[in-house]
């Protein structure tokens, strides 16, 4: 069933509208029911999209989650945006800007090797002002800092201790953020899998393409996805599972790319079926009694925000379940739907205010819990939390890595003995 075909299930109950974080803070976006199942009746064929405000959908999927009848509203909206892009209705500047924002891999390749310089430019007020005026990237939006080392480089050169008991092997999908901005998350993931007796391999991979998908740039996204599938499927056929730490990358491999692009061939399906969020994978190991328990205590009380993209997997909250196993660690779980950033959404000048308004209750929650760091599975959400609260944020797997006895990077390193 295509996303559009689910619109007939809509019973017009309006529940999605009550929960949509964007519609709740701005009048520019009428809400999921109108944009999704309702407007979709008038799209298609040669008709022009009846409502350009669909571009204000952040893609957070909150509507999908609360809809009692299973209408795929977020996907309907994403595909309607892609048609607008294809029909040239996006405007030249915005499209240029979206294409730059949506290529974290390219930005990383340019910026990471010259990290100190690139970081200086990105935190330089006048440069950000120019970026806002020329491109429409909001000057105050949360920009991460490039790591001083690329994850892949680190992975290939790290000292290897041979482990004869590593019977199982798993593919790690790093994602652009780990590769260029937060190599520490990848290091932690490797440590956690190794602590559970896995040999980790890092095959050829590229950007998952989600930023392009959520900007309606489907053609470019399809290229990325096909290239990932082409490389990963070889490993899947040899019996490897794929784990990832970026909730949006794993969701893209599992579902977003196949569903939005309408790609359902055997290879695509095989890769989707073998892809797991890392904590989802650990939970499955736990359920079958194969998990090594994390034992090193973490005497902290921290706010944990499960991002909307994580909820979108529909797997419950495995990261929270894993963190609950860490001795002494206290986790306060946020019940807020979205931090506002929604990937590239909150970077755009016309959407920055909306994103900050959406995130406000979460910022208040993080401030109230008040730990030295916050915890969140998704990279852009971590940066948004930091931008909104001044509190740095880590991935759950970093805490797990510490609890498994591994060395961790900042910001955890100086907090823990």
């Amino acid at each position, binding site marked *: 069933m295509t996303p559009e075909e689910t619109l007939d299930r809509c019973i017009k109950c309006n*529940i999605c509208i009550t929960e949509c974080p964007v519609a709740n803070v701005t009048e520019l976006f*009428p809400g999921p029911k109108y944009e999704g199942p309702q407007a979709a009746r008038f799209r298609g064929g040669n008709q022009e999209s009846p409502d350009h405000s669909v571009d204000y959908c952040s893609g957070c999927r909150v509507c999908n989650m609360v809809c009692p009848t299973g209408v795929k509203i977020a996907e309907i909206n994403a595909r309607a945006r892609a048609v607008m892009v294809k029909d040239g209705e996006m405007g030249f500047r915005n499209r240029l800007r979206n294409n730059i924002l949506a290529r974290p891999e390219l930005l990383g390749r340019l910026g990471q090797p010259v990290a100190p310089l690139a970081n200086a430019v990105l935190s330089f007020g006048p440069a950000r002002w120019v970026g806002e005026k020329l491109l429409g990237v909001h000057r105050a939006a949360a920009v991460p800092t490039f790591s001083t080392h690329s994850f892949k480089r680190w992975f290939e050169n790290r000292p290897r201790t041979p482990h004869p008991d590593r019977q199982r092997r798993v593919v790690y999908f790093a994602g652009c953020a780990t590769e260029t901005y937060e190599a520490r998350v990848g290091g932690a993931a490797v440590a956690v899998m190794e602590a559970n007796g896995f040999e980790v391999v890092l095959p050829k991979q590229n950007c998952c393409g989600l930023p392009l998908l959520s900007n309606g740039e489907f053609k470019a996204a399809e290229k990325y996805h096909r290239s990932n599938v082409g490389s990963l499927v070889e490993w899947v056929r040899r019996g490897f599972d794929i784990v990832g730490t970026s909730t949006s990358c794993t969701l893209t491999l599992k579902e977003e790319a196949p569903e939005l692009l309408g790609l359902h061939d055997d290879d695509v399906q095989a890769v*989707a*079926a073998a892809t797991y969020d890392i904590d989802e994978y650990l939970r499955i190991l736990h359920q079958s009694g194969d998990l090594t328990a994390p034992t090193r205590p973490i005497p902290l009380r921290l706010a944990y925000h499960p991002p909307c993209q994580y909820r979108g997997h529909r797997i419950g909250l495995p990261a*929270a379940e894993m963190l609950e196993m860490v001795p002494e660690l206290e986790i306060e779980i946020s019940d807020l739907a979205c931090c506002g950033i929604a990937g590239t959404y909150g970077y755009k000048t016309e959407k920055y205010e909306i994103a900050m308004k959406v995130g406000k209750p979460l910022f208040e929650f993080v401030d109230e819990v008040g730990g030295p760091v916050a915890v969140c599975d998704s990279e852009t959400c971590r940066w948004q939390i930091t931008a909104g609260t001044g509190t740095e944020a880590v991935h759950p797997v970093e805490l797990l890595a510490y609890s498994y006895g591994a060395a961790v990077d900042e910001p955890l390193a100086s907090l823990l003995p």
Partner: protein
Amino acid sequence: MKTIVIGAGLSGLTVGARLSEAGAEVEVLSQGWGVLHWHAGTIDVLGADGGGRVMSPSAAIETLIATQPDHPYVLVGVDGVAASLDWLVATTAATVGLSGTIESNQVLISATGGPRPTCLAPRSMVGGRHDDTAPTLIVGLDRFPDFSANLVASNLNASGGTARAVDISIPGVTGRTFFNGVTIANALDDPAITATVIEMVSPYLGTEERVGFPAVLGLSRHRQVFDELEASLGRRVFEIPILPPSVPGMRIHRTLVELIGHHRVHEGMEVIGIESGDGRVTSVLTEAAARPNRTPGDRFVIATGGILGGGIVAGYDGSLREVVAGLDVSGPPGRSEWFRTRFADGKGHPVYRSGVGVDGRFSAPEGPDNVTVVGHTLGGTDAIREKSVDGIALATGYKAADLLMGDAGVHP
């Protein structure tokens, strides 16, 4: 012992909240939000029986238990229903403040200005008695399609009341292209907007002793919004439930979800299968990205609703199927028996009485041992027709939770 509740309507959330309160491990899975977002925020226990409007639910339930052996209230008894109401009153005291008794229904003003019997009503609605002839001002909102103050006032006047209607505009809210009850409630959560409403309504007040509003008086700050209005207007204030999305129902929803912990209530998880062994269910499978997600547990509670809620699905071949565990459904044998010939037949349509039959422990006789069925999956009555929808959900959920607590070795 971990209990997995399937369904987040009133029955499922009641089971979840009671188990959580008692310290038992529980998770609630639901396809999406439902029931309580469409809910008037009042608790109907029994509003009509064969003989017309019910004034005393307790007396009518006694009769019903004696005469209808398949009715879900038989499983609970009058005392059980009363205990469940007491529990909900206590549980929501700090948020919505329900009041009422099983001995007698209150008759409140409906969205069209007619009489609406119900058992428990929130603090914000008890002032809206339909038989109260005190002069009343009904406040509507400009360009708000979900509520007509005029209609309410004219129907009240037609039935012997004294009512006037006025529509106000709330700057920044009623001027929006799209707004609904929740938009307005969210706006009123801002004290400045509440103050504006007070300012706009005050000049219209004359001899009126009470002021009725559509049920949009705040969501997270509801109590304060209501108190501020009563204090500043110097009149009794009451809310009238309107079309969904329904703010008073959402207040109850939020209260119960908070009690369980939002992180233990997972929306977007439609159950598509079970795994079992040795006559017991071991886990449920839910629809998820790329592959079904497995949730293991020790006890499973089916609170998915009946034909209207999606817990029972009717097939073109005349079959009736319970969606989670495939439990036997009793109902009219074939499609031709589902409906009476007249659409609006006074006796109702037989198919709406269909459901899963259970024993005194809420287990289906032929079903797995560790599966409990509550709420409208039970069938045995046409709950909408007899205005018992909330009471059945609440009371069966309440009673089943008692049994589950016993099994888990925890106490309320």
